[in-house]
């Protein structure tokens, strides 16, 4: 085994046994499970706590409303129109009721007023949507039963882009892209910070000089980064495995009909629902590798410049900005993947891994843009590795206060 293999093995074992990696992997998996279960869970809790209502008003209107809202609300009692606005005591008289809904026929249609125990938690939109047929019926003087069928008509959106069959699969892809970009962000930031911590530990414990006297700094940095990449890949596989089993909920919750977070639209569809194109998987792997290499080498170089662990924040802070910018731009790109700003950002090194991946997941990106982005990023990655390697080699032997930018430039000239 050569030096690379020896350092890789030691670094890999050290990282995989570290509390940070174990906790990151477990918490990441737990977060995925939580995000998957949360919409259904919240929906269940919200439904149960706001489901029971009391309807008050004209018996005919109440009877019609009771039918219309039956899908979302349980009418536990009906009453005649109250003489005065209901009070909390009136509501409490009906055990478990979350609101008293007073209904009346007005000049323009239905007049409805809700007296809820918790106005903020009451599902007003649901109630309003359910009562629209009654409103129309009263306005045009017909029955709600005649209006209801008219409210339900199908609107199919056919995709002219070959990438997705229909709107549902496009929404599904958008939801899954969101999850993958989040994983990409977490995998890159957690593992690059792992590289940074490892370099900083060797620098601050002064063992770095002993190591570079034994092996080349290039091998040392390369082995560290590859080991972190390997542990990062294992972490990603664990997360993806957990996500694969539970992601359907997230996909549906995020990629609902309007692309919004309608928790009540969650309908878990099982593993079969995830239809991930091979091109997206290839893009994910490609951009993880490129992004990881770019950021890991920069983080390693930054860590080599510090002498005390306390200084880590001052050199790592600026590097967090492009990661965060890439992640936020990727989220923006989910909605408008072909906006000029998103297209430009998808060609900029450090941002490409997040933004181009997102675009590829949600639209058909022209092949020349993909090739150009990968080419720019390969060149940039080589340049970053060269630059970071040079800083790392000299930085490992520099002690004292964190260097200023001019000192770093001087280092690069030597």
């Amino acid at each position, binding site marked *: *085994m050569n*030096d690379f293999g*020896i*350092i890789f093995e*030691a670094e890999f074992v*050290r990282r995989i046994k570290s509390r940070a990696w174990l906790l990151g992997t477990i918490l990441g998996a737990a977060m995925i499970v939580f995000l998957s279960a949360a919409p259904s869970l919240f929906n269940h809790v919200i439904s149960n706590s706001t489901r029971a209502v009391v309807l008050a008003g004209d018996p005919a209107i109440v009877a019609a409303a009771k039918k219309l809202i039956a899908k979302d609300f349980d009418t536990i009692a009906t009453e005649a129109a109250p003489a005065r606005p209901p009070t909390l005591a009136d509501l409490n008289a009906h055990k478990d009721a979350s609101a008293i809904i007073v209904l009346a026929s007005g000049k323009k249609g239905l007049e409805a007023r809700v007296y809820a125990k918790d106005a903020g938690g009451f599902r007003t939109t649901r109630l309003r949507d359910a009562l629209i047929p009654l409103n129309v019926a009263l306005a045009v003087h017909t029955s709600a039963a005649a209006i209801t069928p008219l409210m339900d008509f199908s609107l199919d959106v056919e995709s002219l882009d070959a990438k997705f069959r229909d709107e549902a699969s496009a929404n599904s892809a958008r939801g899954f892209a969101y999850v993958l970009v989040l994983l990409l962000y977490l995998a890159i930031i957690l593992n690059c910070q792992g590289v940074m911590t490892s370099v900083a530990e*060797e620098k601050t*414990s*002064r*063992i*770095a*000089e*002993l*190591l*570079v*006297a*034994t*092996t*080349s700094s290039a091998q040392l940095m390369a082995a560290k980064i590859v080991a972190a990449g390997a542990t990062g890949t294992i972490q990603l596989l664990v997360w993806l495995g957990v996500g694969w089993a539970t992601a359907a909920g997230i996909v549906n919750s995020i990629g609902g009909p309007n692309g919004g977070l309608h928790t009540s639209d969650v309908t878990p569809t099982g593993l079969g629902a995830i239809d991930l194109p091979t091109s997206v998987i290839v893009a994910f792997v490609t951009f993880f590798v490129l992004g990881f290499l770019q950021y890991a080498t920069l983080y390693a170089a930054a860590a080599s410049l510090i002498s005390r662990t306390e200084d880590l924040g001052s050199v790592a802070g600026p590097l967090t900005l492009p990661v965060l910018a890439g992640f936020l731009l990727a989220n923006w790109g989910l909605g408008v993947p072909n906006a000029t700003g998103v297209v430009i950002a998808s060609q900029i090194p450090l941002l490409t891994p997040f933004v181009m991946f997102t675009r590829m997941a949600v639209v058909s990106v022209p092949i020349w843009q993909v090739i150009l982005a990968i080419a720019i990023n390969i060149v940039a990655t080589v340049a970053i590795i060269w630059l970071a390697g040079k800083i790392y080699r000299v930085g490992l*032997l520099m*002690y004292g206060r964190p260097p200023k930018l001019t000192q770093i430039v*001087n280092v690069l000239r*030597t």
Partner: protein
Amino acid sequence: MLQLTDVHRSFGSVAAVRGVTFTIATGATFGLLGPNGAGKTTTMRMILNILVPDRGTITWDGAPIDGTLRRRFGYLPEERGIYGKLKVREQLSYFGKLHGLREPLLESRVSEWMERLEIGIYADRPCAELSKGNQQKVQVACAAMHEPEFLILDEPFSGLDPVNAETLLRALRHLQSTGTTLVLSSHQMYQIEHLCTDFCIIAGGEVRANGSLAELRRGWPTRTVLVEPASPTLRAVLDRVSGAHARPQQNGTLAYDVPQSFDLPALARELVAAGDLTRLERLEPSLSDIYLRAIGEPV
């Protein structure tokens, strides 16, 4: 043989090493001396190819020092480093592998060096739990366990109590016996003087003195004679010696610096003739004297 020829190295506008030239014979124990900031560490880093000289050449047996050659070298830097979470045995094993040792030799060398430096009882304890002196012995073992052809030890005795210093001394003598060429940098002149065969004194990035102790002494212009008792008669004889300078009298002993070429038998005859001479001793300059003079400090 290690050969440095006209080696220069600057950091920005600061010239850390300026035209350093010296040779270290194979198997020698070489003392690299100098005050703080003299350029010793930079020189050592260049020898190990950690830093590249701006100018000049460094060769081992005529060949430039590359990665393959460096694997046969060892280095204990002045700034000590250790993986606190690794156990002593794991730490030694890691550095042994990096220096090219493989099983079963690796395991036997790890055990051998733990025993030699008396750290075997800590083999399965994390290094961070060891005392500073024992951590230092772990670091020495990491640098020396592959029994390198060439080993640089920067301040190996600092922080060691006399017992541990003696343990280290025995380990260094073992390395001497195996033919390892040793370079020691230390401010503890007494140990260096007794351990090293050759010396180089650097100050301001330049070589100020270089050679064996005998050679360095040959370049020293005076010798010190001690005479007892401190009587006026004997003092008068010493005052007559051409070029002699009295040094402060200590404990009833007369001390005079006299030219290196003075005639000791003739002086002895004059002192005996002058009266009740009880002691006449000629002192060679110590390494400390030579060092202080070389770096421009008063002796």
